[in-house]
Structure formats: structure tokens, C-alpha cells
């Protein structure tokens, strides 16, 4: 619609803030491209840390991927892991500090390609950490190559004619695989493309963090996200594409949820 751009008067001081940048997220310009889901994921993760009041006990592990600089934005102690090894790094930290809250934040290339072995075994050991998995079906940082999660016939810089199953196999639903492992305590798939999904995703991160205290296994939160830049779309389009193409193949929802009992006798 055409807006008649008249000036709006603001009376902020007469009103109360009901939603603002969390204190756990530093007030720095993020290097992410316009409309990139990483930013939302960062914010809700830090909101969760803030709401749980565990900033002082939380140690994060950044991956190699576009979110490699997560430690520039998250106001907590963090380690930068080698590509694919974030869960091993997290294991090293958590085994030495079983009472701290430890999470990894990883892309699909990091977690589901080069890091497959570490991911599977970390979950299989049931390490009491939270794994946040940002699935944008592409290698963002390196310029848009095929990821294990790239959709069939999706064009990327290394599948210029689209992903062909006979040569590159099917998109890997690693989250479904991990949900099979007894070491997994909580496994869910979320998205951040709509306000409603953002709310749900944040709740999932809250659970994933706080349930570490129960020491009953790994919490795994996949977040289906976008990469406007390498998908070659405007941010708004990219969210539509995500809705229409990613979600059908990567349906949202919980794959493994702790039972009442498991949560009670913590």
C-alpha cells in the first residue's frame, strides 16, 4: 500500500519497553547479510540465556561458517572451534565443567558434513550440551556451495545444474538420525521465518539450555534458516522459498521430547 509518509510523534518516555535487544547480545553491528536468519537465532539464543539468568555459567562454541564471529555478538565466554569440531570442543569443556551450560552453534556444512562423526558421537555419548543447528541448505560463508542439506535440484555454486540424487545423494536429514540415538534427550526442528515460529524456536532453545542441568543427555535444536545472499533472493522472497521448499522436506516439530517423569526426577 502507498503510505502517506507523515511524521509520527513518539512518546517513548510515557510508555514501557516490552521488547528490546537482550543485554546478553552486544550492541554491535552484525556482519550478517540483510535478512539472514543467523541474526534472529543469535538474538533468541541470547534472550534464552538472559531469561534463565545463566550468562555467568554459559560457555558457547562458535563454528566455522558465517556464524564464525558469533563471539563478537554474544556477551558470554566463547570458543571458536575448527570446522566441524564444535561438539568435540564442547565435550572438552563440558567434561571439565559438568555444571556449566555449554552450547554449540553450527551450520549444516559444519555439523552435517565435515563434523558428522563428532556430531553423531557427541549425541551418542549423550553429552549434556545443547547443539544449535542452523540449516540453511547451503555453505553460506564460502559462497554458496552445496551442503548435505541442499534440496534436490537446488542450484548452488557447486551444483550449477541442481543437486542430482544419483551423484550427490539425497538431502541429509541428520536431525531425524540423531533423534534415534538413546543419548539424545530432546530433539526438535524449528524455524525463524515468522513471528510465531520465532516464539516457538526461542522456547525450544530455553528448554535445550535449562534441561542440561538434568544431565540426561544431549539437547538438539535444528533451526531451518535462510541464506538470501547465496540463494540469490531478497530476504522476504527467501523466507517464502523456505516456507515452500524447505519446510515440506524438513517439517517443523519435536522429534524427541522428554517425558514428564524424565523432567521431574531431575
Amino acid at each position: 500500500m502507498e503510505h502517506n509518509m507523515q511524521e509520527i510523534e513518539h512518546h517513548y518516555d510515557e510508555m514501557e519497553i516490552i521488547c528490546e535487544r537482550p543485554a546478553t547480545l552486544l550492541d554491535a553491528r552484525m556482519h550478517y547479510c540483510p535478512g539472514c536468519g543467523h541474526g534472529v537465532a543469535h538474538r533468541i539464543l541470547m534472550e534464552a540465556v538472559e531469561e534463565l539468568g545463566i550468562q555467568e555459567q554459559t560457555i558457547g562454541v562458535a563454528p566455522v561458517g558465517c556464524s564464525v564471529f558469533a563471539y563478537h555478538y554474544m556477551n558470554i565466554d566463547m570458543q571458536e572451534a575448527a570446522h566441524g569440531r564444535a561438539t568435540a570442543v564442547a565435550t572438552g569443556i563440558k567434561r571439565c565443567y559438568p555444571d556449566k551450560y555449554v552450547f554449540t552453534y553450527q551450520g549444516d556444512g559444519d555439523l552435517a558434513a565435515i563434523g558428522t562423526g563428532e556430531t553423531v558421537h557427541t549425541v551418542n555419548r549423550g553429552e549434556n550440551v545443547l547443539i544449535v543447528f542452523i540449516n540453511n541448505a547451503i555453505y553460506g560463508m564460502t559462497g554458496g556451495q552445496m551442503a548435505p542439506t541442499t534440496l534436490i535440484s537446488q542450484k548452488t555454486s557447486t551444483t550449477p545444474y541442481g543437486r542430482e540424487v544419483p551423484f550427490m545423494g539425497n538431502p541429509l536429514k541428520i536431525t531425524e538420525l540423531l533423534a534415534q540415538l538413546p543419548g539424545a534427550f530432546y530433539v526438535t526442528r524449528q524455524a525463524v521465518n515468522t513471528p510465531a515460529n520465532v516464539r516457538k524456536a526461542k522456547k525450544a532453545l530455553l528448554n535445550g539450555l535449562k534441561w542440561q542441568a538434568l544431565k540426561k543427555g544431549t539437547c538438539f535444536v535444528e533451526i531451518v534458516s535462510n541464506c538470501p545472499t547465496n540463494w540469490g533472493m531478497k530476504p522476504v522472497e527467501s523466507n517464502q522459498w523456505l516456507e515452500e521448499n524447505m519446510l515440506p522436506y524438513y517439517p517443523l516439530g519435536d522429534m524427541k521430547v522428554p517425558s514428564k517423569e524424565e523432567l521431574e526426577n531431575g
Partner: protein
Amino acid sequence: MAKIRGDVKIDIEKCKGCELCVVACPQDALTLSNEINKQGYHYALLVEDVCNGCKSCALVCPDAVITVYREDRSGKKTPVAEVRNVTGDITIKVGAEDAAN
């Protein structure tokens, strides 16, 4: 009046003009400016006085540059937030100027 009044404050210098807030706003209260900020982006602006503080814009904002306000019933103030979040004056007469052309 009955209608809940809300408002938003946008840190336009950090805004990247992704437009996600614009499409997320149920009230269609937001739009992108015609001007660009120092980063070179057309930033988001509140252009209709119909905000109800539903937060949708802030929830989807990847750069966490939107602060949402609601008409204060408790009288509580949190000025810190403003200090931390705002750079520069964000009421700009884009619309007006534009109209001038």
C-alpha cells in the same frame, strides 16, 4: 481509548533494510525509507500511527534493532534501554521531504 497503543524505536543506522519487519507487521505500520543510511541500506520506518505493540517486527528482526513500546499502565520506566539502543535521532522527515519533491 480502547485500542491498545504501541510504538517502536528503530536503530536506523544498524538497520539493513531487509524488510522482514515490514511484511511481518499486521498493522502495516512500517515501510522502508527512500533514503539510505551510512551502510547504504534503505532503513525501516514507522509510517502509520497504528502500532499496537504486537512485537512481530522485533521478533523477526535479524539485527535486533527494534525496541517495542506499549502504553504504560504500570508507570515503570526503563531508560537504560534507550541509552543502550539508540544512536542518533530516529524521527526523520523522509516522508515529508519526499512529498516536497
